[in-house]
Protein backbone atom coordinates (compact mmCIF):
# COMPACT_ATOMS: atom_id res chain seq x y z
CA UNK A 1 0.00 0.00 0.00
CA UNK A 2 1.20 3.52 -0.75
CA UNK A 3 2.60 5.52 2.12
CA UNK A 4 1.32 8.94 3.18
CA UNK A 5 3.59 11.38 5.00
CA UNK A 6 2.14 13.16 8.01
CA UNK A 7 4.04 16.13 9.44
CA UNK A 8 3.89 16.02 13.24
CA UNK A 9 2.99 19.22 15.09
CA UNK A 10 4.18 18.82 18.68
CA UNK A 11 5.60 20.68 21.66
CA UNK A 12 8.70 18.83 22.92
CA UNK A 13 7.23 15.47 21.95
CA UNK A 14 3.66 16.17 23.10
CA UNK A 15 1.70 15.60 19.89
CA UNK A 16 -1.01 18.18 19.24
CA UNK A 17 -4.50 16.92 18.45
CA UNK A 18 -4.72 18.05 14.79
CA UNK A 19 -1.83 15.69 13.95
CA UNK A 20 -3.84 12.73 15.25
CA UNK A 21 -6.74 13.85 13.05
CA UNK A 22 -4.33 13.82 10.09
CA UNK A 23 -3.48 10.19 10.86
CA UNK A 24 -7.18 9.33 10.51
CA UNK A 25 -7.22 11.06 7.12
CA UNK A 26 -3.93 9.48 6.03
CA UNK A 27 -5.39 6.01 6.64
CA UNK A 28 -8.13 6.76 4.10
CA UNK A 29 -5.44 7.23 1.45
CA UNK A 30 -2.70 4.80 2.45
CA UNK A 31 -0.32 3.87 5.22
CA UNK A 32 0.63 6.77 7.50
CA UNK A 33 4.32 7.52 7.99
CA UNK A 34 4.91 10.32 10.51
CA UNK A 35 7.76 12.83 10.30
CA UNK A 36 8.88 14.08 13.70
CA UNK A 37 11.37 16.96 13.88
CA UNK A 38 12.97 18.15 17.10
CA UNK A 39 13.08 16.55 20.56
CA UNK A 40 10.76 13.92 22.02
CA UNK A 41 10.48 11.48 19.11
CA UNK A 42 10.24 8.39 21.34
CA UNK A 43 7.37 9.77 23.42
CA UNK A 44 5.60 11.05 20.31
CA UNK A 45 6.06 7.74 18.47
CA UNK A 46 4.10 5.91 21.13
CA UNK A 47 1.06 8.15 20.60
CA UNK A 48 1.53 8.26 16.81
CA UNK A 49 1.72 4.45 16.68
CA UNK A 50 -1.49 4.13 18.68
CA UNK A 51 -3.21 6.21 16.00
CA UNK A 52 -1.94 4.40 12.95
CA UNK A 53 1.62 5.54 12.15
CA UNK A 54 3.51 2.53 10.85
CA UNK A 55 6.84 4.37 10.94
CA UNK A 56 8.06 7.56 12.56
CA UNK A 57 10.91 9.23 10.70
CA UNK A 58 12.74 11.34 13.25
CA UNK A 59 15.42 14.00 13.06
CA UNK A 60 16.66 16.39 15.72
CA UNK A 61 19.01 19.33 15.21
CA UNK A 62 19.36 22.79 16.73
CA UNK A 63 18.50 24.31 13.34
CA UNK A 64 14.83 23.36 13.75
CA UNK A 65 14.44 25.72 16.70
CA UNK A 66 17.06 28.33 15.82
CA UNK A 67 15.93 29.19 12.28
CA UNK A 68 12.52 29.82 10.74
CA UNK A 69 10.63 27.29 8.59
CA UNK A 70 13.32 26.32 6.04
CA UNK A 71 15.18 23.64 8.08
CA UNK A 72 11.85 21.84 8.47
CA UNK A 73 11.28 22.07 4.71
CA UNK A 74 14.72 20.52 4.13
CA UNK A 75 13.83 17.64 6.46
CA UNK A 76 10.40 17.02 4.99
CA UNK A 77 11.90 17.10 1.50
CA UNK A 78 14.43 14.45 2.58
CA UNK A 79 11.59 12.34 4.00
CA UNK A 80 9.55 12.67 0.81
CA UNK A 81 12.54 11.69 -1.32
CA UNK A 82 13.19 8.66 0.90
CA UNK A 83 9.56 7.49 1.05
CA UNK A 84 8.06 8.48 -2.32
CA UNK A 85 4.65 9.15 -0.69
CA UNK A 86 1.22 9.15 -2.32
CA UNK A 87 0.48 12.40 -0.49
CA UNK A 88 1.88 14.70 2.19
CA UNK A 89 -0.43 15.98 4.94
CA UNK A 90 0.50 18.97 7.10
CA UNK A 91 -1.53 20.63 9.87
CA UNK A 92 -2.91 23.96 8.65
CA UNK A 93 -1.17 26.21 11.16
CA UNK A 94 0.55 29.37 9.95
CA UNK A 95 3.91 27.61 10.02
CA UNK A 96 2.47 24.37 8.61
CA UNK A 97 1.17 26.16 5.53
CA UNK A 98 4.52 27.86 4.90
CA UNK A 99 6.38 24.56 5.23
CA UNK A 100 3.89 22.81 2.94
CA UNK A 101 4.07 25.48 0.25
CA UNK A 102 7.85 25.44 -0.04
CA UNK A 103 7.88 21.66 0.04
CA UNK A 104 5.28 21.46 -2.75
CA UNK A 105 7.36 23.74 -4.95
CA UNK A 106 10.49 21.67 -4.38
CA UNK A 107 8.70 18.40 -5.08
CA UNK A 108 6.93 19.80 -8.15
CA UNK A 109 3.62 19.06 -6.43
CA UNK A 110 0.35 20.91 -6.44
CA UNK A 111 -0.81 22.21 -3.07
CA UNK A 112 -4.22 22.55 -1.45
CA UNK A 113 -4.43 24.63 1.73
CA UNK A 114 -6.90 24.68 4.62
CA UNK A 115 -8.78 21.50 3.75
CA UNK A 116 -11.73 20.79 6.03
CA UNK A 117 -12.03 17.22 4.77
CA UNK A 118 -10.02 14.84 2.58
CA UNK A 119 -11.30 11.64 0.95
CA UNK A 120 -9.63 9.10 -1.29
CA UNK A 121 -10.66 9.51 -4.94
CA UNK A 122 -10.10 7.75 -8.25
CA UNK A 123 -7.43 10.30 -9.26
CA UNK A 124 -5.89 10.82 -5.85
CA UNK A 125 -7.15 12.57 -2.73
CA UNK A 126 -10.10 14.95 -2.98
CA UNK A 127 -9.90 17.87 -0.56
CA UNK A 128 -12.85 19.96 0.58
CA UNK A 129 -12.26 23.64 1.35
CA UNK A 130 -14.44 26.50 2.54
CA UNK A 131 -14.45 29.58 0.32
CA UNK A 132 -15.63 33.18 0.64
CA UNK A 133 -16.06 33.19 4.41
CA UNK A 134 -17.59 29.70 4.31
CA UNK A 135 -20.38 30.76 1.94
CA UNK A 136 -19.17 28.05 -0.45
CA UNK A 137 -17.63 24.66 -0.16
CA UNK A 138 -15.29 23.49 -2.94
CA UNK A 139 -13.67 20.17 -3.75
CA UNK A 140 -10.23 20.11 -5.34
CA UNK A 141 -7.63 17.67 -6.57
CA UNK A 142 -3.96 17.97 -7.37
CA UNK A 143 -2.91 17.45 -10.98
CA UNK A 144 0.84 17.34 -10.64
CA UNK A 145 3.11 15.39 -8.29
CA UNK A 146 2.25 13.87 -4.92
CA UNK A 147 -0.49 16.11 -3.44
CA UNK A 148 0.61 18.33 -0.57
CA UNK A 149 -2.45 19.16 1.53
CA UNK A 150 -2.72 21.27 4.67
CA UNK A 151 -5.64 20.29 6.86
CA UNK A 152 -7.51 22.38 9.41
CA UNK A 153 -8.22 21.25 12.97
CA UNK A 154 -11.45 19.24 13.46
CA UNK A 155 -11.43 17.93 9.87
CA UNK A 156 -11.62 14.33 11.08
CA UNK A 157 -12.13 12.41 14.32
CA UNK A 158 -9.18 11.08 16.31
CA UNK A 159 -9.30 7.29 16.05
CA UNK A 160 -7.31 4.58 17.78
CA UNK A 161 -5.66 2.30 15.18
CA UNK A 162 -2.68 0.47 16.66
CA UNK A 163 0.35 0.24 14.36
CA UNK A 164 4.06 -0.30 14.85
CA UNK A 165 5.09 3.34 15.15
CA UNK A 166 8.74 2.33 14.81
CA UNK A 167 11.18 5.22 15.12
CA UNK A 168 13.66 5.44 12.24
CA UNK A 169 16.35 8.11 11.98
CA UNK A 170 15.93 10.55 9.11
CA UNK A 171 19.11 11.87 7.46
CA UNK A 172 18.87 15.61 6.82
CA UNK A 173 21.44 17.88 5.26
CA UNK A 174 20.56 21.54 5.48
CA UNK A 175 20.74 23.78 2.41
CA UNK A 176 22.17 27.27 2.25
CA UNK A 177 18.81 28.95 2.87
CA UNK A 178 18.15 26.96 6.04
CA UNK A 179 19.97 29.45 8.25
CA UNK A 180 18.62 32.55 6.50
CA UNK A 181 16.18 33.70 9.18
CA UNK A 182 17.43 33.49 12.74
CA UNK A 183 15.07 33.10 15.69
CA UNK A 184 16.81 35.47 18.07
CA UNK A 185 14.49 34.82 20.99
CA UNK A 186 11.28 33.02 21.76
CA UNK A 187 8.69 33.82 24.43
CA UNK A 188 6.29 30.94 25.02
CA UNK A 189 2.64 31.83 25.30
CA UNK A 190 1.25 31.59 28.86
CA UNK A 191 -1.25 28.78 29.20
CA UNK A 192 -4.64 29.85 30.57
CA UNK A 193 -5.61 26.32 31.57
CA UNK A 194 -8.62 26.59 29.23
CA UNK A 195 -9.03 24.38 26.15
CA UNK A 196 -7.17 25.32 22.96
CA UNK A 197 -9.41 27.66 20.91
CA UNK A 198 -9.22 25.68 17.66
CA UNK A 199 -9.70 22.33 19.39
CA UNK A 200 -12.44 23.16 21.91
CA UNK A 201 -15.90 21.60 21.69
CA UNK A 202 -17.44 24.84 22.96
CA UNK A 203 -16.26 28.40 22.32
CA UNK A 204 -17.65 31.42 24.19
CA UNK A 205 -16.74 34.73 22.53
CA UNK A 206 -17.03 38.38 23.42
CA UNK A 207 -17.05 41.44 21.19
CA UNK A 208 -17.25 45.20 21.40
CA UNK A 209 -20.40 44.82 23.45
CA UNK A 210 -18.31 43.49 26.36
CA UNK A 211 -17.06 47.05 26.69
CA UNK A 212 -13.80 46.73 28.62
CA UNK A 213 -11.03 44.32 29.51
CA UNK A 214 -12.27 43.85 33.07
CA UNK A 215 -15.73 42.86 31.81
CA UNK A 216 -14.30 39.86 29.98
CA UNK A 217 -14.53 38.10 33.35
CA UNK A 218 -18.25 37.73 32.55
CA UNK A 219 -17.36 35.86 29.35
CA UNK A 220 -14.68 33.79 31.09
CA UNK A 221 -17.07 32.76 33.86
CA UNK A 222 -19.55 31.39 31.31
CA UNK A 223 -16.74 29.66 29.42
CA UNK A 224 -15.44 28.03 32.60
CA UNK A 225 -18.91 26.82 33.61
CA UNK A 226 -19.11 25.02 30.24
CA UNK A 227 -15.46 23.92 30.03
CA UNK A 228 -15.15 26.12 26.94
CA UNK A 229 -12.42 28.15 25.24
CA UNK A 230 -12.70 31.95 25.13
CA UNK A 231 -12.75 33.82 21.83
CA UNK A 232 -12.93 37.50 20.92
CA UNK A 233 -13.87 39.63 17.95
CA UNK A 234 -11.26 41.84 16.35
CA UNK A 235 -12.98 44.91 17.77
CA UNK A 236 -12.40 43.54 21.29
CA UNK A 237 -8.81 42.60 20.44
CA UNK A 238 -8.02 45.94 18.81
CA UNK A 239 -9.38 47.72 21.87
CA UNK A 240 -6.80 45.79 23.90
CA UNK A 241 -9.43 43.94 25.98
CA UNK A 242 -8.31 40.45 25.03
CA UNK A 243 -5.16 38.91 23.44
CA UNK A 244 -4.86 38.59 19.68
CA UNK A 245 -4.23 34.86 20.09
CA UNK A 246 -7.92 34.53 21.02
CA UNK A 247 -9.26 36.39 17.98
CA UNK A 248 -11.81 34.48 15.94
CA UNK A 249 -12.18 35.33 12.27
CA UNK A 250 -10.41 35.87 9.00
CA UNK A 251 -7.21 37.20 10.52
CA UNK A 252 -7.55 35.25 13.74
CA UNK A 253 -8.35 31.62 14.36
CA UNK A 254 -11.04 29.77 12.54
CA UNK A 255 -13.06 27.54 14.81
CA UNK A 256 -15.61 24.88 14.13
CA UNK A 257 -16.85 23.75 17.54
CA UNK A 258 -20.02 21.88 18.49
CA UNK A 259 -21.29 25.08 20.11
CA UNK A 260 -20.34 28.73 19.53
CA UNK A 261 -21.76 31.43 21.80
CA UNK A 262 -21.29 35.00 20.50
CA UNK A 263 -21.83 37.77 23.05
CA UNK A 264 -21.92 41.43 22.01
CA UNK A 265 -20.67 40.54 18.53
CA UNK A 266 -22.44 41.97 15.47
CA UNK A 267 -21.44 39.22 13.04
CA UNK A 268 -19.33 41.01 10.40
CA UNK A 269 -18.32 38.89 7.39
CA UNK A 270 -14.71 38.68 8.61
CA UNK A 271 -15.86 37.34 11.98
CA UNK A 272 -18.25 34.89 10.33
CA UNK A 273 -15.37 33.59 8.21
CA UNK A 274 -13.90 32.12 11.37
CA UNK A 275 -16.99 30.62 13.04
CA UNK A 276 -19.70 30.05 10.44
CA UNK A 277 -19.08 26.30 10.25
CA UNK A 278 -19.76 25.79 13.98
CA UNK A 279 -22.42 23.12 14.51
CA UNK A 280 -24.71 25.07 16.84
CA UNK A 281 -24.56 28.86 17.05
CA UNK A 282 -26.01 30.97 19.85
CA UNK A 283 -25.88 34.74 20.21
CA UNK A 284 -26.66 37.34 22.82
CA UNK A 285 -26.95 40.86 21.44
CA UNK A 286 -29.04 43.84 22.42
CA UNK A 287 -29.65 44.82 18.78
CA UNK A 288 -32.36 42.62 17.24
CA UNK A 289 -31.09 43.67 13.78
CA UNK A 290 -27.51 42.43 14.30
CA UNK A 291 -26.48 40.18 11.36
CA UNK A 292 -25.26 37.49 13.79
CA UNK A 293 -28.93 36.58 14.34
CA UNK A 294 -29.10 35.36 10.71
CA UNK A 295 -26.79 32.52 11.70
CA UNK A 296 -28.12 31.45 15.05
CA UNK A 297 -29.92 28.36 16.19
CA UNK A 298 -30.91 30.29 19.29
CA UNK A 299 -30.61 33.98 19.95
CA UNK A 300 -31.41 36.24 22.87
CA UNK A 301 -32.06 39.90 22.20
CA UNK A 302 -30.92 41.53 25.41
CA UNK A 303 -28.12 43.04 27.45
CA UNK A 304 -25.30 40.53 27.81
CA UNK A 305 -24.60 41.79 31.33
CA UNK A 306 -28.02 40.49 32.37
CA UNK A 307 -28.26 37.40 30.19
CA UNK A 308 -24.76 35.94 30.45
CA UNK A 309 -24.42 35.89 34.27
CA UNK A 310 -27.91 34.39 34.56
CA UNK A 311 -26.96 31.71 32.05
CA UNK A 312 -23.72 31.00 33.93
CA UNK A 313 -25.64 30.52 37.19
CA UNK A 314 -28.12 28.19 35.46
CA UNK A 315 -25.33 26.12 33.92
CA UNK A 316 -23.62 25.78 37.31
CA UNK A 317 -26.89 24.87 39.02
CA UNK A 318 -27.76 22.25 36.41
CA UNK A 319 -24.28 20.75 36.47
CA UNK A 320 -24.54 20.59 40.27
Amino acid sequence: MAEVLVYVDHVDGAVRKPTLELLTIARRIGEPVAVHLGPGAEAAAKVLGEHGATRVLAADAPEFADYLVVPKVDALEAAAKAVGPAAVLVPSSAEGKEIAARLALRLGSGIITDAVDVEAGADGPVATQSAFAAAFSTRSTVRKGAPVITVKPNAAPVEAAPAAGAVEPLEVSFGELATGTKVVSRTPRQSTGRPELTEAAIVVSGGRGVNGAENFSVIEALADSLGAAVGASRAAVDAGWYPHSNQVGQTGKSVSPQLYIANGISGAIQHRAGMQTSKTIVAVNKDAEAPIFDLVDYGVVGDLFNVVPQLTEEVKARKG
Partner: protein
Amino acid sequence: MSLRIVVAVKYVPDATGDRHFAEDLTTDRDAVDGLLSELDEYAVEQALQIAEAADDAEVTAVTIGPEDARGAVLKALQMGAAKGVHVEDDALHGTDIIGTSLVLAKAIEHIGYDLVVTGMASTDGTAGVVPALLAERLGIPQVTLLSEVAVADGKVTGRRDGDVASEQLEAALPALVSVTDQSGEARYPSFKGIMGAKKKPLETLDLSDLGVDAAEVGLDGAWSAVQDATARPARTAGTIVKDEGEGGKQLAEFLAAQKFI
Protein backbone atom coordinates in the same frame (compact mmCIF):
# COMPACT_ATOMS: atom_id res chain seq x y z
CA MET B 1 23.03 53.32 -1.43
CA SER B 2 19.39 53.20 -2.16
CA LEU B 3 17.02 50.64 -0.65
CA ARG B 4 14.77 49.12 -3.30
CA ILE B 5 11.47 47.94 -1.77
CA VAL B 6 8.91 46.01 -3.78
CA VAL B 7 5.44 45.54 -2.27
CA ALA B 8 3.10 42.90 -3.74
CA VAL B 9 -0.54 43.96 -3.74
CA LYS B 10 -3.58 42.01 -4.82
CA TYR B 11 -6.86 43.28 -6.25
CA VAL B 12 -9.74 41.32 -4.72
CA PRO B 13 -13.53 41.30 -4.75
CA ASP B 14 -14.97 43.25 -1.80
CA ALA B 15 -15.53 40.77 1.05
CA THR B 16 -18.72 42.53 2.10
CA GLY B 17 -20.21 41.87 -1.35
CA ASP B 18 -21.94 38.66 -2.44
CA ARG B 19 -18.86 36.80 -3.72
CA HIS B 20 -19.18 33.67 -5.78
CA PHE B 21 -17.57 31.53 -8.47
CA ALA B 22 -17.75 31.94 -12.24
CA GLU B 23 -18.77 29.02 -14.44
CA ASP B 24 -15.16 27.85 -14.85
CA LEU B 25 -14.87 27.78 -11.02
CA THR B 26 -12.50 30.76 -10.86
CA THR B 27 -13.40 33.71 -8.63
CA ASP B 28 -16.14 35.76 -10.28
CA ARG B 29 -14.56 39.21 -10.55
CA ASP B 30 -17.50 40.89 -12.29
CA ALA B 31 -20.26 40.34 -9.76
CA VAL B 32 -18.64 42.28 -6.93
CA ASP B 33 -16.60 45.50 -6.96
CA GLY B 34 -12.88 45.05 -6.52
CA LEU B 35 -10.40 46.85 -4.31
CA LEU B 36 -6.86 46.64 -2.97
CA SER B 37 -6.98 43.76 -0.47
CA GLU B 38 -7.28 45.35 2.98
CA LEU B 39 -4.57 43.02 4.24
CA ASP B 40 -2.19 44.38 1.59
CA GLU B 41 -2.79 47.93 2.79
CA TYR B 42 -0.79 46.89 5.85
CA ALA B 43 2.02 45.76 3.55
CA VAL B 44 2.02 49.09 1.70
CA GLU B 45 2.00 50.95 5.03
CA GLN B 46 5.02 49.05 6.39
CA ALA B 47 6.87 49.39 3.08
CA LEU B 48 6.33 53.17 3.22
CA GLN B 49 7.39 53.37 6.88
CA ILE B 50 10.57 51.41 6.19
CA ALA B 51 11.29 53.68 3.21
CA GLU B 52 10.67 56.80 5.30
CA ALA B 53 13.08 55.56 7.97
CA ALA B 54 15.83 54.90 5.40
CA ASP B 55 18.13 57.58 3.97
CA ASP B 56 17.29 56.81 0.41
CA ALA B 57 14.61 54.32 -0.58
CA GLU B 58 12.06 53.72 -3.29
CA VAL B 59 8.84 51.71 -3.05
CA THR B 60 7.45 49.94 -6.13
CA ALA B 61 4.01 48.29 -5.96
CA VAL B 62 3.37 45.27 -8.15
CA THR B 63 0.18 43.38 -8.91
CA ILE B 64 -0.79 40.46 -11.11
CA GLY B 65 -4.33 40.41 -12.38
CA PRO B 66 -6.82 41.43 -15.04
CA GLU B 67 -7.29 44.97 -16.33
CA ASP B 68 -9.04 46.38 -13.27
CA ALA B 69 -6.33 45.01 -10.95
CA ARG B 70 -4.48 48.19 -11.90
CA GLY B 71 -6.69 49.69 -9.19
CA ALA B 72 -4.62 47.97 -6.51
CA VAL B 73 -1.40 49.56 -7.75
CA LEU B 74 -3.08 52.92 -8.16
CA LYS B 75 -4.20 52.86 -4.52
CA ALA B 76 -0.63 52.00 -3.44
CA LEU B 77 0.65 54.96 -5.50
CA GLN B 78 -1.95 57.21 -3.83
CA MET B 79 -0.75 56.03 -0.42
CA GLY B 80 2.80 56.97 -1.37
CA ALA B 81 4.55 54.30 -3.44
CA ALA B 82 6.81 55.82 -6.11
CA LYS B 83 6.26 53.43 -9.00
CA GLY B 84 3.84 50.74 -10.07
CA VAL B 85 3.98 47.57 -12.15
CA HIS B 86 0.91 45.73 -13.41
CA VAL B 87 1.35 42.28 -14.92
CA GLU B 88 -1.59 41.57 -17.18
CA ASP B 89 -1.99 38.79 -19.72
CA ASP B 90 -5.05 36.87 -20.93
CA ALA B 91 -3.13 33.64 -20.35
CA LEU B 92 -3.11 34.36 -16.60
CA HIS B 93 -6.83 33.66 -16.12
CA GLY B 94 -7.24 30.85 -13.60
CA THR B 95 -3.60 30.76 -12.44
CA ASP B 96 -3.14 28.94 -9.10
CA ILE B 97 -0.88 29.98 -6.22
CA ILE B 98 2.10 28.11 -7.62
CA GLY B 99 1.74 29.96 -10.93
CA THR B 100 1.06 33.29 -9.24
CA SER B 101 4.25 32.94 -7.23
CA LEU B 102 6.20 32.19 -10.42
CA VAL B 103 4.99 35.31 -12.22
CA LEU B 104 5.36 37.50 -9.14
CA ALA B 105 8.91 36.28 -8.57
CA LYS B 106 9.81 37.07 -12.20
CA ALA B 107 8.22 40.51 -11.93
CA ILE B 108 10.06 41.27 -8.68
CA GLU B 109 13.36 40.20 -10.27
CA HIS B 110 12.56 42.38 -13.27
CA ILE B 111 11.96 45.39 -11.00
CA GLY B 112 15.03 44.77 -8.84
CA TYR B 113 14.83 44.61 -5.03
CA ASP B 114 16.53 44.59 -1.66
CA LEU B 115 13.33 44.00 0.29
CA VAL B 116 10.04 42.41 -0.74
CA VAL B 117 6.97 43.16 1.38
CA THR B 118 3.66 41.27 1.15
CA GLY B 119 0.42 40.97 3.09
CA MET B 120 -0.30 37.98 5.35
CA ALA B 121 -2.94 36.50 3.03
CA SER B 122 -5.25 37.58 0.26
CA THR B 123 -8.82 38.22 1.36
CA ASP B 124 -10.28 36.16 -1.50
CA GLY B 125 -8.01 33.11 -1.78
CA THR B 126 -6.87 33.34 1.87
CA ALA B 127 -4.12 30.76 1.36
CA GLY B 128 -1.35 32.85 2.89
CA VAL B 129 1.39 30.90 1.14
CA VAL B 130 2.48 33.18 -1.71
CA PRO B 131 5.05 34.91 0.58
CA ALA B 132 6.78 31.60 1.47
CA LEU B 133 6.68 30.55 -2.19
CA LEU B 134 8.23 33.86 -3.26
CA ALA B 135 11.07 33.47 -0.76
CA GLU B 136 11.69 29.93 -2.00
CA ARG B 137 11.74 31.03 -5.64
CA LEU B 138 13.87 34.13 -5.06
CA GLY B 139 16.26 32.23 -2.79
CA ILE B 140 16.07 34.84 -0.03
CA PRO B 141 15.20 34.60 3.70
CA GLN B 142 11.51 34.67 4.60
CA VAL B 143 10.70 36.83 7.61
CA THR B 144 6.96 36.34 7.67
CA LEU B 145 3.79 37.09 9.61
CA LEU B 146 5.33 40.01 11.43
CA SER B 147 3.36 42.23 13.77
CA GLU B 148 6.40 44.53 14.07
CA VAL B 149 9.13 45.13 11.52
CA ALA B 150 12.20 47.31 11.14
CA VAL B 151 15.10 47.57 8.70
CA ALA B 152 18.53 48.89 9.69
CA ASP B 153 22.19 48.21 8.85
CA GLY B 154 21.33 45.80 6.04
CA LYS B 155 19.20 43.66 8.36
CA VAL B 156 15.48 43.16 8.82
CA THR B 157 14.15 42.37 12.28
CA GLY B 158 10.64 41.68 13.42
CA ARG B 159 8.26 39.98 15.80
CA ARG B 160 6.22 36.95 14.79
CA ASP B 161 3.37 36.03 17.14
CA GLY B 162 2.78 32.34 16.65
CA ASP B 163 0.44 29.75 18.10
CA VAL B 164 2.69 28.63 20.92
CA ALA B 165 5.26 31.42 21.15
CA SER B 166 6.17 34.92 20.12
CA GLU B 167 9.46 35.00 18.21
CA GLN B 168 11.97 37.74 17.52
CA LEU B 169 13.40 37.21 14.02
CA GLU B 170 16.39 38.55 12.13
CA ALA B 171 17.70 38.19 8.56
CA ALA B 172 20.14 39.92 6.25
CA LEU B 173 18.92 41.75 3.13
CA PRO B 174 17.83 40.91 0.50
CA ALA B 175 14.84 39.36 2.24
CA LEU B 176 11.09 38.90 2.05
CA VAL B 177 8.77 40.18 4.75
CA SER B 178 5.04 39.59 5.24
CA VAL B 179 3.10 41.66 7.74
CA THR B 180 -0.12 40.98 9.63
CA ASP B 181 -3.06 43.24 10.40
CA GLN B 182 -1.46 43.75 13.83
CA SER B 183 1.41 45.72 12.27
CA GLY B 184 -0.32 49.10 12.51
CA GLU B 185 -3.18 50.94 10.79
CA ALA B 186 -2.63 51.83 7.15
CA ARG B 187 -2.74 55.50 6.15
CA TYR B 188 -5.46 56.98 3.96
CA PRO B 189 -4.34 58.58 0.70
CA SER B 190 -4.29 62.37 1.03
CA PHE B 191 -5.84 64.61 -1.61
CA LYS B 192 -2.32 65.46 -2.71
CA GLY B 193 -1.49 61.77 -2.85
CA ILE B 194 -4.51 61.03 -5.01
CA MET B 195 -3.69 63.84 -7.46
CA GLY B 196 0.02 62.99 -7.52
CA ALA B 197 -0.55 59.29 -8.20
CA LYS B 198 -1.79 60.06 -11.71
CA LYS B 199 1.66 61.33 -12.66
CA LYS B 200 3.61 58.43 -11.22
CA PRO B 201 5.05 55.79 -13.56
CA LEU B 202 2.83 52.70 -13.89
CA GLU B 203 4.33 50.09 -16.20
CA THR B 204 2.24 47.27 -17.70
CA LEU B 205 4.01 43.99 -18.48
CA ASP B 206 2.86 40.75 -20.06
CA LEU B 207 4.22 37.24 -19.76
CA SER B 208 6.64 37.60 -22.66
CA ASP B 209 8.18 40.67 -21.02
CA LEU B 210 8.94 38.45 -18.04
CA GLY B 211 10.03 35.42 -20.04
CA VAL B 212 7.27 33.23 -18.59
CA ASP B 213 5.87 30.46 -20.77
CA ALA B 214 2.06 30.76 -20.98
CA ALA B 215 1.81 26.95 -20.56
CA GLU B 216 3.07 27.32 -16.98
CA VAL B 217 0.15 29.51 -15.88
CA GLY B 218 -3.61 29.79 -16.34
CA LEU B 219 -6.21 27.15 -15.64
CA ASP B 220 -4.44 24.59 -17.83
CA GLY B 221 -1.05 25.18 -16.25
CA ALA B 222 -2.38 24.91 -12.69
CA TRP B 223 -0.98 22.13 -10.49
CA SER B 224 -4.30 21.82 -8.67
CA ALA B 225 -7.87 22.03 -9.89
CA VAL B 226 -11.23 22.86 -8.35
CA GLN B 227 -13.69 20.08 -9.23
CA ASP B 228 -16.89 21.67 -7.94
CA ALA B 229 -18.22 24.48 -5.76
CA THR B 230 -21.40 24.29 -3.75
CA ALA B 231 -23.15 27.12 -1.95
CA ARG B 232 -23.43 26.36 1.73
CA PRO B 233 -27.03 25.56 2.55
CA ALA B 234 -28.65 28.51 4.30
CA ARG B 235 -28.91 27.90 8.01
CA THR B 236 -32.47 27.18 9.05
CA ALA B 237 -33.93 30.11 10.90
CA GLY B 238 -33.34 29.80 14.62
CA THR B 239 -35.42 30.72 17.61
CA ILE B 240 -34.98 34.27 18.76
CA VAL B 241 -36.32 35.46 22.08
CA LYS B 242 -36.32 38.87 23.71
CA ASP B 243 -34.91 39.01 27.20
CA GLU B 244 -37.69 39.94 29.62
CA GLY B 245 -35.63 38.97 32.65
CA GLU B 246 -35.49 35.23 31.95
CA GLY B 247 -33.29 35.25 28.80
CA GLY B 248 -30.37 33.49 30.46
CA LYS B 249 -32.63 30.78 31.83
CA GLN B 250 -34.32 30.29 28.46
CA LEU B 251 -30.92 29.96 26.84
CA ALA B 252 -29.90 27.39 29.45
CA GLU B 253 -33.08 25.47 28.66
CA PHE B 254 -32.09 25.40 24.97
CA LEU B 255 -28.55 24.26 25.77
CA ALA B 256 -29.86 21.52 28.05
CA ALA B 257 -32.27 20.31 25.35
CA GLN B 258 -29.30 20.14 22.97
CA LYS B 259 -27.37 18.13 25.61
CA PHE B 260 -24.65 20.76 26.05
CA ILE B 261 -25.38 20.82 29.79
